Structure formats: C-alpha cells, structure tokens
C-alpha cells in the first residue's frame, strides 16, 4: 500500500472532524500504542520532559481525558463544551513510503465554547504519522499555540 499526499491531507481533515463531532473512540483509534500528544507551553519549546508543557500525554492520559468528559460527576462539563476546527490545507513535509513515516504540518483556528464564553486559538499542528497494519496512525502530534505564553482560562477539549 502506498500513501499519497491526499491520504495524508484527508487524515488530518478526518481527525479534526472526529474531535469536533466528539467521536472520541474513533479518535483514540487513530493513535499508535505509544503515541504522544504534546502541547508546548513555551514558544519553540525543545524540552518536553524537564520543563512544564501544557500537555504531554500518552494513551493512558488521553483515554482518561476522553472518558472524563462523559462522567456523571465531571462538574466542569456541566454543561458540556463544544469545539470547532477551521484548518488550512496541510503542508505535507515528508512522505517516506519505504520507511512508512510521514510528516504533516497544519495551520488551524480552534474555537471552544461553553455557556456564554467562546475563545479562539491559532494553532500549528504537526503530525508524525506511521503506517501500521495498512493504516495511518499518529505516533506524535505536536500542537503549538500562537499565544502559548498568554494566560488562559480552561481549555477543556482537544485542540
């Protein structure tokens, strides 16, 4: 199986659609077992381990995050938040079918709302994708927030 540029672009579109529609089980299935979601705190942050990040989550943490959203006593989700991604056509930075490794960078606007509040984040998402059993999976997703050094209120869903 050969991955094309379109396959990679579609993958990113499909992923944000799952997030916007709250199809989290499908979304968790997009990841490799040791896939990591990283959201740096510092602009151009290099060290994700020994400095604070906004998120640095493995599959256990992502599953926890997603399961919590539907819990009976998840007070900050009463009422629930909604989110919305508007994405630019992804840049395909690397297609290496021999190694089964791919890199895609996407600029996007992320909107989250709850009650009377709504906020907008400008994001750059970088997907490291790999081919596992003929399916593309996320090995690593890095999400940089344009104003990462600003003070935020709750960001409750997944940018």
């Amino acid at each position: 199986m050969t991955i094309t540029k379109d396959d990679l672009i579609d993958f990113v579109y499909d992923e944000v659609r799952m997030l916007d529609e709250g199809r989290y089980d499908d979304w968790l299935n997009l990841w490799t077992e040791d896939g990591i979601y990283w959201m740096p705190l510092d602009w151009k942050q290099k060290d994700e381990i020994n400095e604070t990040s906004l998120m640095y989550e493995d599959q256990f943490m992502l599953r926890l995050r997603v399961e919590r959203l539907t819990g009976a006593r998840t007070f900050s989700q009463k009422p629930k938040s909604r989110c919305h991604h508007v994405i630019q056509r992804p840049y395909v930075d690397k297609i290496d079918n021999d190694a089964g490794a791919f890199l895609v960078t996407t600029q996007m606007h992320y909107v989250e709302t709850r009650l009377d509040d709504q906020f907008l984040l400008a994001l750059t998402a970088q997907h490291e994708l790999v081919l596992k059993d003929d399916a593309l999976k996320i090995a690593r997703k890095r999400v940089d927030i344009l104003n990462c050094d600003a003070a935020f209120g709750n960001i409750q869903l997944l940018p």
Partner: protein
Amino acid sequence: MTTYRTKQDIEALVTPFQVHRDVYTSDEVYRLEMKHLFANSWVFVGHDSQTPNKGDYYTTQIGDQPVIQVRHSGGEVKVLHNRCPHKGTKIAIDRTGNTGKFFRCPYHAWSFKTDGCLLAIPLKKGYEGTGLDQTENGKGMKSVGAVMNYRGFIFARLAEEGIGFEEYFGESLSSFDNMIDRSPAGKLVVAGQPLRYMHRCNWKMLVENQTDTCHPMVAHESSAGTAVKIWEEMEQPEGAPKPPAMQIIAPFMSPYEFFEDMGIRTWPNGHGHTGVSHSIHSDYSEIPGYFEKMSEAYGEEKAKQILGENRHNTVYFPNIMIKGPIQQLRNFIPLGPDKTLVESWIYRLVDAPDELVARTAMYNRMINAPTSIVGHDDLEMYERAQEGLMSDGLQWVNIQRLYKEDEDLDTQAEENGTTERQMRNQFHAWTKFMTMSLPSEDALEAAE
C-alpha cells in the same frame, strides 16, 4: 458610596469562623487589600535564578503594583517600582531581559542605575535651578520598602516601615528549607516557563483551597476517580509499579481518613501547611542515585530526615503556596476582586537526577495547567462560588470545620488534617495586616 474606611469596618467582616462575602466580591475591599494588606505583608517576587547575571531583570507585580526584580551591579537583587519618575512610563515591559549597567526610559531617555538611582537626563540644563533635585522624582526609580533574598527566593515588603522578614515568617520557613535542602547542593534553579492560568474568582479562594482537604475526593472524582478506574480495568503484570502519572493522580482519591491523619500545622501571621505526617507526595517511587547523592552531601541520617518530610501544601500568607517534596511554587496574583492570575513555577534541584524535575513538570501540567483535567474542576468550583456569592440569600461564608471556642491563632498548632483552622488563620492575619495602616473610627472622626 464608601462603606469600608476604618479598622472597625474591616474587622466586622471577619468573625472567628465566618467571613463576610464582601471580602470576596467588593471592589472597595479589594482596593483596600492592595493598599494595605499587600503593602504591609511580605510578598513573593521571584527566584534568584531568574536573574542570574548583572543587569538581568524580571517584571512582575506585588498586589497591583508593577515591579522589577533586577540583579544590581553589586551582585545583589533589587526590587524597584516599574515606573519612570518622569511621566510614569513603565521602564521594562518584557517579562525578562538584560538591561546592561542601567535602565533607560524609552520615552525621554532618563536613565537609572540598576538600584534605581538617577544616572542621567538628556539636555539636563533645562532643569537647572528648577529644584528637580529637591523632589522625590528627581532621585530616580523608587525601591520597594524592603527586600529579602531567602535562600534564593526573593520577597518584598512595599511599606517603608513594618514587620521584619524573620518575625513575619518565623518557623514557617522550615518548608522552604526542606524544599531547598532536597538539592544535594542546597540550591534550586527555575525550570522552564511558569503555567499562567486565569481565574475569574477572588484570589483568596485559591489560597484557601490549598489547605482544603475535604474537596479532592469530591471535586476531582471525575479525573482521579476515572484514572483509578481505567487503571484497574487495564491488565497489569503482577507487581508492576504504578506509572508516574498514576502515582501523581491516584492519591487525590484518598479517603477522608487519609487527609484527617495527615494533619495540618499552622503558624502565626497566616502561614500553615497540610501533611504533617504524610501527604499525597509520600509514596512516589525512588529515583535511582538520588539518595546516594543526598547522603554524600548531608550524611545518611540528615538525608533521611530531609526526604522523610513530605509536607503537602504550605501556604505563605498572603498569596503563595509551595510544595516542598516536588519543588513547585504557585503564585496567586490578584488582578481584581473577581480576577486572579495563577502562575505555577517549578524548580530543578541542583546536583539531583533529572528524573525529579521531570516528575515535577508532569505534576505541574497534569494538575495545574489550563489544560489540566484536575484544574478544570477546581476552576469550576471557584467560579461557581464567585457567582454564588452574589446571592443576597446569605451574607457569610462558613469556615467552621473543627472550630473550637477561644481558638488561639497566634500560636503554632498541629491538628486534624481536615480542620479549616488554616483558613481561619489566614483571615486572622488578613484582618491584622489590612487594619495595620487603617485609621480607627475615632481617629477618622477627629480628623474630619
């Protein structure tokens, strides 16, 4: 309309076990806090390692006062009001930087030494014979009232006169000592950027929550409880250690007895801590090589003693909390009666293995980030409280748990870990430092 003017007006807002809701909602009370409470007490500014070299500066605020922490040419750290004595322009705007040997105001280029003293004014002859040198503004940038560098942690008192640092903190400094002693070199260095988390609630709600041991198993059931549930569902190999994330989050679900037994200690002037005997930080797995380093530095017995202390949250009145066992400091910066910026800083232990700061960074992002599933529910509680307090149905907030008549908050005490004594202790200190520089009713009447 001015409701709160005198010592007596403020004293009436706090009873031994109740606090009037205006303390959290009134703009007037908030302004008095900025003017009196934050001026009379010792407030955290920053860490030494944020300004390591001469001319390095860091901008922050003490209450609502913009200040600069700067490394002076003599090597010591100064804290100056961030305001040009000419027309008021803020001298430094970026959060950190290096100013070289002097500050230069970007508006008309008055310049100042890094201790604030006036250095030069362009076209100075325009001031000849005007008497500028007789004014306070003519001297340069104003320093705060007093500065103390306690083992790397910089505190300031805005007021010129007032309580000394040692008297203000007293025995409570033992928590700072324990945090710093956990470095084999006895030294901490700031690690990375702080989390900055905006809260639409009064700053004191956050401070109170630091020793609120009856909320974790309730408010955090959705995160910690779900974590425990998922972990149990996953098939674990026999005797497998819990991963660091579980070690961090699972203890939030500990039963009431755990928190009752851990104990609370309070000190005079509003300071206190949870976790006298143990805490949610007690059962973290050992980091290879760390104890050896500590033993080399301190001897085995002292090392054991330092690491055996597992205080949970230590509140330094008025507005910071530290976690000694994981080298975290949270600064609750008031921005308005219903607005608080929370900065969560972490520090690296000099000469200790990196795994320690990695665990601390994990704690910080898991528990205290705007993206944290634990933080989300805390913020939800504070904001609901801020909105609920607008109700005229009741006027008072209750902090009566394990209250005993004639409670003496001016002496150190150790009590059941679920007591709200530390909250009462904070309000006892609140009244003390608020009213210290307020006129009494009689004095005000006589003046009018």
